[in-house]
């Protein structure tokens, strides 16, 4: 299991040096990655469907309780198969969709990374490990959404998606840590036994709130849903992958995973049913007003996610079964519709459904795939969507009596909307008269239309054989969510005409009626956009603008680009901090009896030093002042020598030499010495400098007053030869005892050098300059 998760990560690293490979004909080999993972997990179906659970443990940071703990049960298996199965289709598709794109290697790198992260999320048995992968999905999806990074909209949507899911991730982390602290374990398997502790704890509402925020932001629930339509700026294969089977389902997975641990309470139910119910209705109605194919699909996705949240929220046996089936139903038809949209966009150059029509004549196999998916989304009998819809109504009808009616009506309205949305996206572009401009449209590569066709046909196969599918895939998933046996049994025909069937058919009829009578148009889109000011997107944007303004103001104040102002601020801050510390630590005293006598050399050096200092301050020439500065430096070296610190002296000596050279080189290029500074500024700087010097001197004196701690010195003195075989303690500390520090210091030095180099060598063309 560990390997299947890491495979994508490893591959994405190799795509950096071997990027050319993706541009060659061997690129087809890439699809082996999700393909092999898919096949590997297919072989687990038989044992998992009989109730086995697989575990794998690898130590990572055992001291913090974070390990590579993976668990494969019914729920994980369902998601893993979705991720790798749909992934294989997407990989094939994207190879042709992006053929010839200059950054296709990068694209597959991100895609592999994303797939690996998703696999990690659904296989982790450790909640912190899950979080690591969770964040990785946010980050890799940022790159995928913003793949067309020369487009400003694309960058903006990627950033929106990242900020929303990032904020959610932050809350999720808080929730997970609270769970770990309350329950004393980070393992899902162990947490199930701690359910009572968690639910009865004072912090339960907070935990639930944090986890919900994480799930809602990821799964685009109201009011965080707006990043999802924005994310449609991504290349279509990405939209298909992110929004059908993976990214947005991660939130649903999280809720399902936590259901046996945190679920089943009133708080759980009311929140999820409320949020999910509202989201599904809101988005389903919204989707009818879109004219962009991807816009329709985006809103219908949000609506489907709402349904899933809603079902998990209800928490009855029926609703959990429905959720476990609907995940699969939705993934199959939504991925197909997205891929079809991609083909349409690729071949005709537009996604506007008011323009598209009659494409069945030029793209027959695509029409077949699209039609099947639309029918599945509509829930026509014999499609898998029919089973899914049945189960949803089953769940709402069997809910508590007071609520059953309301929830059922809610579900019917939502589903009617989804029927229409499915038809709009899947059938509308293909029916009607073929406009002249599209007559030359031709079929794309086989690798583009075969994947959606397979997915669509699967929807039909699963629909015809629901019993088999249910047993193999959904039964154990539902068991894992509920934490107990669900005795699920899927069937096309329940033997009699019951309420559920009537509702299903009524939904379909209403949907078809609306589809035929209601035509989306720009005027309707404009009408609905009038409400934009009330939408969460607008409000969030307002906040974002304010924060941006504040940070601009703040940055301009502190970061004004003048080196002298930085120096002044840094030194003043240090003075205040150190001064305060000195003030509260009591007076400084000098023990004159202990002082050694002054030698003539010391007096001489100090006199030279003072003279040089005087020149530095008074000279009108920069060069003179630099040279005098180095005289001061050398004087200090001499003082080190007097007090037997040859290491320090040597280093100081070379540093002084080099910094003088550096100063000269830089100053040489500056214009002549022009005195801009006024008297007041000079006095201010003088006072600040004097203050700093005084404080440092006081600290030096203070150090002598404190009792000397010899332990550290003794430790190094005793051990540097015994442990590190060195007699020069300073050097042994640098290269051995504190070697990691030195290592990172050299890294910092290197970064500084590269920074200087790139700043000075950056040659912008006149057009690139801003």
């Amino acid at each position, binding site marked *: 299991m560990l390997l299947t998760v890491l495979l994508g990560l490893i591959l994405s690293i190799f795509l950096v040096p071997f990027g050319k490979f993706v541009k060659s004909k061997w690129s087809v080999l890439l699809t082996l990655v999700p393909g092999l993972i898919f096949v590997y997990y297919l072989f687990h179906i038989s044992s998992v469907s009989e109730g086995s659970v697989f575990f794998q443990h690898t130590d990572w940071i055992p001291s913090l309780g974070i390990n590579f703990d993976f668990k494969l049960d019914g729920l994980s298996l369902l998601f893993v198969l979705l991720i790798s199965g749909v992934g294989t289709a997407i990989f094939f598709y994207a190879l042709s969709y992006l053929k010839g794109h200059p950054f296709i290697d990068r694209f597959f790198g991100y895609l592999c990374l994303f797939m690996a992260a998703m696999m990690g999320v659904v296989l982790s048995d450790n909640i912190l490990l899950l979080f690591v992968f969770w964040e990785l999905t946010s980050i890799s999806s940022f790159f995928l959404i913003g793949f067309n990074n020369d487009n400003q909209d694309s960058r903006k949507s990627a950033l929106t998606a990242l900020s929303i899911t990032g904020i959610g991730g932050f809350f999720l982390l808080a929730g997970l840590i609270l769970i770990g602290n309350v329950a004393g374990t980070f393992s899902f398997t162990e947490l199930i036994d701690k359910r009572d502790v968690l639910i009865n704890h004072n912090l339960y509402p907070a935990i639930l709130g944090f986890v919900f925020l994480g799930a809602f932001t990821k799964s685009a629930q109201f009011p965080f849903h707006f990043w999802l339509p924005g994310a449609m700026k991504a290349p279509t294969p990405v939209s298909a992958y992110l929004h059908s089977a993976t990214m947005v389902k991660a939130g649903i997975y999280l809720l399902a995973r936590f259901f046996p641990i945190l679920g089943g309470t009133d708080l759980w139910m009311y929140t999820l049913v409320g949020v999910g119910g509202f989201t599904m209705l809101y988005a389903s109605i919204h989707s009818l007003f879109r004219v962009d194919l991807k816009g329709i699909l985006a809103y219908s996705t949000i609506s489907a996610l709402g349904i899933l949240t809603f079902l998990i929220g209800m928490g009855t046996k029926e609703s959990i079964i429905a959720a476990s089936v609907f995940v699969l139903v939705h993934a199959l038809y939504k991925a197909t519709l997205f891929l079809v949209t991609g083909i349409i966009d690729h071949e005709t150059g537009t996604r506007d459904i008011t323009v598209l029509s009659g494409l069945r004549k030029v793209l027959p196999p695509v029409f077949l795939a699209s039609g099947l998916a639309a029918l599945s989304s509509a829930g026509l009998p014999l499609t898998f969507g029919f089973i899914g819809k049945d189960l949803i109504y089953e769940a709402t009808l069997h809910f508590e009596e007071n609520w059953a009616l309301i929830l059922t009506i809610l579900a019917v309205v939502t589903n009617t909307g989804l029927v229409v949305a499915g038809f709009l996206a899947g059938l509308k572009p293909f029916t009607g008269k073929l406009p002249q401009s599209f007559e030359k449209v031709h079929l794309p590569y086989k690798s583009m239309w075969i994947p959606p066709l397979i997915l669509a046909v699967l929807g039909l196969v699963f629909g015809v054989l629901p019993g088999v599918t249910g047993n193999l895939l959904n039964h154990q998933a539902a068991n894992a969510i509920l934490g107990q046996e669900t005795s699920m049994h899927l069937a096309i025909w329940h033997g009699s005409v019951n309420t559920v069937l009537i509702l299903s058919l009524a939904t379909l009829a209403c949907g078809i009626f609306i589809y035929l009578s209601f035509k989306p148009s720009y005027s309707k889109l404009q009408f609905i956009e009038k409400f934009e000011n009330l939408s969460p997107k607008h409000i969030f944007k307002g906040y974002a603008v304010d924060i941006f303004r504040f940070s601009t103001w703040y940055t301009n104040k502190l970061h004004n680009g003048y080196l002298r102002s930085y120096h002044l601020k840094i030194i003043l801050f240090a003075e205040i901090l150190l001064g305060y510390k000195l003030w509260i630590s009591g007076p400084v005293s000098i023990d004159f009896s202990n002082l050694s006598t002054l030698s003539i050399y010391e007096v001489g050096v100090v006199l030279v030093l003072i003279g040089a200092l005087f020149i530095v301050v008074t000279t009108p020439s920069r060069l003179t002042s630099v040279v005098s500065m180095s005289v001061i430096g050398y004087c200090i070296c001499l003082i080190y020598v007097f007090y037997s610190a*040859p*290491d320090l002296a*040597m*280093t100081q000596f*070379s*540093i002084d*030499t*080099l910094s003088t*050279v*550096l100063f000269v*080189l*830089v100053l040489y*290029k500056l214009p002549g010495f022009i005195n801009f500074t006024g008297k007041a500024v000079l006095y201010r700087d003088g006072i600040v400098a004097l203050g700093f010097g005084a404080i440092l001197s006081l600290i030096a004196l203070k150090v002598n007053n404190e009792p000397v701690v010899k332990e550290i010195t003794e430790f190094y003195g005793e051990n540097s030869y015994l*442990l*590190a*075989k*060195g*007699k*020069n303690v*300073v*050097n*042994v500390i*640098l*290269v*051995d005892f504190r*070697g*990691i520090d*030195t*290592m990172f210091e*050299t*890294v910092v*030095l*290197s970064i*500084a*050098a*590269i920074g*200087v*180099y790139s700043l*000075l*060598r950056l040659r912008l063309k006149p057009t690139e300059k801003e």
Partner: protein
Amino acid sequence: MRSIILQTATKYLLPILLLFSVFLLLRGHYEPGGGFVGGLVASIAFVLHSFAFGTENTMKILRRKPMSLIPIGLGIAALSVIAPTFFGLPPMTGLWFEEPIPVIGMIGSSLFFDLGVYLVVIGVVLTILFTISLTED
């Protein structure tokens, strides 16, 4: 401005300073010295050469960009950090050869670490200084 005195002196000083810097590097474990100071002295040697003969000529005797020393140095230091893990020891454990080598003395992984620091310091100092001095206004 080329001074013949400086140039002649530099011709003799450059090898001596470089030798001295290696000496500092090697003795660092027992006496005052070490990779950092050694690296600084070596860079001073090259800076001196660049003053006497011009930076272009110094670049010529260096053959390659001083920046290339940075990854080499970091690589050597990093290798010496992780080398002990190949022997099943925690990273940064000091490894030593059994017998001292003539002239150089005892050799251990910390010497390689110091060598890495030495190279990085030369690379960093020369990169910064030469970049500035070669940049036209």
